[in-house]
């Protein structure tokens, strides 16, 4: 049961990492506020459940819609900047929502809110069954990986990847990349919003920690660990990160002391992350 809980958590955060990888790895958009979509997804489920609206057919579309809308509005502004400015703006927007949730006394504020009933789907699937819930999460992860994989090789994906390396040339060719990058940003935000919906159902609890900026940082680390811009890399990165966390935090609460130097070494020597390591060893 413990392993099932861990695996479910890994799968859910892998969805978030896969979505971040689409804009970060393929699109070069370094967002330090991606966890905000976990929060938007999670809080939508939590607040609706608090008011007795438990149907997933209502909760989930609203959560995804709000995530998409938030990504559209903040992305439209953020994507006018690049690099460290983009990072700061995405962080600011996420912090705004973070402090909003802290101030939501009606919904627990800092202490968070317990969800007494998971999303229901008119008897089609019972998410309070932990095994069934795990399979639902796993199926969604597979779907997300498939979507990102297909997108990355499509007309759309090639524009996103090209805009990352040489936007000036894209303009000169006649492609205004802004709307494509915005579309990618909205897709990634919506996908991460779905991860937030699942996370709230998994923990039966929401609190501002879900969308703190350190959580956004964790997601970046997962993507980097796995290998930027590879389809399956972020999944491996999430597994590695959470297993490491689980194993090391049993030994010391300062487990990140071990992780830190490891990340530095990888940034210096193996940019491809775990996926890079694998293909590298294959080549030898």
């Amino acid at each position, binding site marked *: 049961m413990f392993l099932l809980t861990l695996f479910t958590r890994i799968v859910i955060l892998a969805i978030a990492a896969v979505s971040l990888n689409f804009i970060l790895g393929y699109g070069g958009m370094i967002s330090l506020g991606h966890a905000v979509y976990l929060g938007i997804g999670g809080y939508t489920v939590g607040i609706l459940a608090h008011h007795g609206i438990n149907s997933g057919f209502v909760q989930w579309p609203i959560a995804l819609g709000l995530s998409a809308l938030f990504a559209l509005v903040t992305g439209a502004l953020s994507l006018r900047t690049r690099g460290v400015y983009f990072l700061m703006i995405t962080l600011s927007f996420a912090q705004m929502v973070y402090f909003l949730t802290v101030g939501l006394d009606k919904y627990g504020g800092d202490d968070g809110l317990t969800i007494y009933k998971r999303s229901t789907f008119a008897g089609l699937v019972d998410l309070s069954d932990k095994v069934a819930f795990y399979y639902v999460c796993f199926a969604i992860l597979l779907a997300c990986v498939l979507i990102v994989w*297909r*997108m990355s*090789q*499509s*007309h*759309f*994906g*090639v*524009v996103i990847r*090209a805009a990352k*390396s*040489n936007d*000036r*040339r*894209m*303009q*000169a*060719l*006649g*492609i*205004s990349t802004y709307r*494509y990058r915005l*579309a990618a940003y909205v897709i990634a935000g919506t996908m991460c919003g779905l991860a937030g919906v699942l996370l709230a159902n998994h923990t039966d609890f929401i609190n501002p920690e879900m969308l703190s900026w350190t959580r956004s940082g964790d997601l970046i680390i997962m993507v980097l660990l796995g290998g930027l811009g590879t389809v399956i890399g972020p999944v491996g990165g999430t597994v590695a990160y959470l297993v490491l966390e689980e194993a090391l935090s049993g030994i010391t609460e300062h487990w990140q002391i071990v992780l830190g130097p490891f990340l530095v070494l990888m940034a210096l020597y193996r940019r491809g992350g775990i996926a890079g390591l694998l293909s590298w060893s294959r080549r030898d």
Partner: protein
Amino acid sequence: MTDPLIDVRDLEKSFGGITATDHVSLALRRGEIHAVIGPNGAGKTTLINQLSGELRPDSGSILLAGSDITHHRVAARARAGLARSFQITSIFLDFTVLDNVALAVQATLPHSFRFWRDVRKDERLRGPARAVLQRLGLAGRGDTPAAELSHGEQRQLELAMALATNPRVLLLDEPMAGMGPEESRQIIALLGSLKTDYAILLVEHDMSAVFALADLITVLVEGRVLACGPAEEIRANEEVKRAYLGEEELSPVRKAGNGHH
């Protein structure tokens, strides 16, 4: 005389106190190569950047086929038929050669909001891209990552991408920079064969290439048009000789020029 495809009128641009473009007017016509020459810092690249839209002129106007594009953005101008090559090679190094050119062809599609099909299986892009590579002599290099090309080949790819957008006007910023003599000869032959279909603005330091190719030459000095006219007239222009060409540069040019006549 046909109406100009590009009509530049009284263009002015200054950076701080320095005038980079000083009341420049020039015209580009289909079937003509119009070379812009001048010493370093004369404002040649600044002029190209204003034509392509990366820089906004302080005053003056730019007309493309009669319509004013002075305030159009870069991408809009490119879609209207204006293609440029960069002085410093600007290609997608992590893409293959064919993918680079196919992306340029993709730029001519109405939009790229296609999310599922593999772009590398789209023959509407691959076919024209291969044809352009054939024309540039890069046909055998299609699957090579652009980063692994020689400098000369990268310059050819730079040109291939400009051609692949199916433009009416080509703005070429030193297309032969850093090329070996053999590669330069190929590009000169190619540009000569291209000019019937395009209006070409050529900025180039290689004077033998300029005199071999140009129908018209505009000489820029400190942002100002010193002279503009047919190649022979420019070569004989005493003011141009004094201001720019200089005896040591003219002599080899004469030899190269004589070979053609």
